[in-house]
């Protein structure tokens, strides 16, 4: 038991160093803030530069024409835009379903040795250098088919997307408390229905974020595209030939020594950023607009029920 005198002694000790702790607190706060600013500065400056240099090049012609003769500053990046949209779309068609299903498997059925192994390989794949994946796709698809094609590009990009989506899906599903699954089972609802109709709708937000991250990632990948779709100055010409994409076009334009080419390069970069941004906003709007209706759930908001 602590006596009254002891208590008074102890109190003196705590209250003594309060000022020191307050100062430490402030210093750490400042340091943390500074770090955040330091982290944001590059991002901010990139965005600023791209907008500054790229907006000048924008025009309808720029967005819809094929590239003109090198150095003339005529033409546009129409094929590249089309190519990027096509390849993002096709890769997502493969990568998203497989990734989500893998994530569901890992979260709901993966609490065992097999699951651990899958998870391990998933993480390894996520860390693969994308150029290695590009070479792999080159060897497997391009050489076998005999030509550069969208198949190869899709193959490479889906491999890059998969681990990201699988992991984020798994994590989002794991965030949903077990009690909702139990409630579903207690109602005699089949396992798969519990997962798709109850759990996934709760985890929607996190899953969409993961998918958008993956889409943004592959939207900007350049190295694998070099080996798989090669690039082209024409609009999409079929599934068995090379095609253009924005990262490739940006790269090629930036290597040219002409001012006009550089300007077009900035424009292309701006367009790429805008495309990724609008996909993000659009998807969120479409899938998460039920906020008013049902998505009141938030881990911290659970405290509300105690009222």
């Amino acid at each position, binding site marked *: 038991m602590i006596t009254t005198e002891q208590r008074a002694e102890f109190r003196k000790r705590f209250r003594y160093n309060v000022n020191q702790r307050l100062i430490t607190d402030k210093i750490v706060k400042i340091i943390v803030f500074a770090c955040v600013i330091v982290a944001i500065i590059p991002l901010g400056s990139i965005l600023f530069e791209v907008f500054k240099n790229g907006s000048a090049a924008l025009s309808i012609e720029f967005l819809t024409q094929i590239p003109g003769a090198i150095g003339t500053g005529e033409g546009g990046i129409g094929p590249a835009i089309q190519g990027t949209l096509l390849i993002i779309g096709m890769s997502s068609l493969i990568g998203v379903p497989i990734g989500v299903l893998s994530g569901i498997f890992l979260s709901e059925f993966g609490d065992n040795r097999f699951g651990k192994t899958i998870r391990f390989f998933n993480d390894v794949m996520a860390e693969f250098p994308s150029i290695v994946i590009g070479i792999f796709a080159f060897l497997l698809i391009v050489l076998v088919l005999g030509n550069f094609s969208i198949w190869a590009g899709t193959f490479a990009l889906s491999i890059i997307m998969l681990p990201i989506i699988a992991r984020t899906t798994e994590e989002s599903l794991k965030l949903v408390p077990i009690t909702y699954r*139990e409630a579903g089972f207690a*109602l*005699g*609802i089949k396992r798969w229905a519990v997962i798709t109709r*109850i759990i996934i709708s709760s985890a929607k937000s996190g899953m969409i974020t993961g998918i958008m991250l993956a889409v943004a990632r592959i939207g900007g990948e350049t190295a694998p595209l070099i080996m798989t779709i090669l690039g082209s100055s024409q609009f999409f010409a079929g599934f068995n030939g090379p095609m253009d994409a924005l990262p490739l076009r940006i790269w090629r334009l930036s290597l040219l020594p002409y001012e006009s080419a550089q300007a077009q390069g900035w424009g292309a970069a701006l367009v790429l950023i805008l495309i990724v941004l609008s996909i993000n906003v659009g998807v969120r709007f479409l899938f998460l607009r039920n906020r008013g209706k049902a998505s*009141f759930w938030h881990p911290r908001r659970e405290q509300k*029920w105690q009222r």
Partner: protein
Amino acid sequence: MAALTNMTESTSALSEKKKYKVIAENITASYDEVVAVKNVTIKFKDKAVTALIGPSGCGKTTLLRCLNRMHELTKNATVTGRVLLDGEDLYSNAQDPIIHRRKIGMVFQKPNPFPTMSIYDNVAAGLKLNGLRDKAVIDEIVRGCLQMVYLWDEVKNDLKKPGMSLSGGQQQRLCIARALAIQPEVLLMDEPASSLDPIATQKIEEMINELKKEYTIIIVTHNMQQAMRVSDYTGFMYLGDLIEFGETRQIFENPRNELTAKYVQGQFG
């Protein structure tokens, strides 16, 4: 003459089984190597409330979860024994647990309405997600269940609002309505009022009193006064064993077992 005697014997055994809606026979349940329920046998009467009391960790919740085969969903959880619902063993291998879980509803300690669903959808979840499509029937069931839990008047104009927008006591009643929607015959309640304020608790208890006219209710509770108010029969468990079982009045006025007397008088646990 002998044939006649045999017949009366078996019919009386049958009627015994019929008097008891649920019979848990020799249930032994464990998590990994830890045995949580040790060879417990209890008979639960139909259209009555049976309470399971005991200190934390005595196995009452585990036993409850064995009754609707939820225990085996936990990793490394094992259970042996039989659970007879109207004479039919739920654990015989021929039966898919899903079917049985629809006969036995469960309400959990913390209210857990499905977060992305409205009030209406929550109550209808067990129906819709099990394949029922007839909207008229669903409407009727939802309304009936919400009335049974005395929630209808409070929410009838807000059925599309999210389930989580209700207060704690209302959410718990919503969960009970959800459990009732699948028309179970037995209702299992795991400390249903322990996270609620006294007024909400009172409402839940009044509701249980009404429900027991139609359902067999088995309730696990920490609160002995609640067990006294609400239940007809009480079982006291300690460290996995069923120490004593009998009519609530007898358990609390004149417990036969020394351990039971100590527990109900607050001398431990």
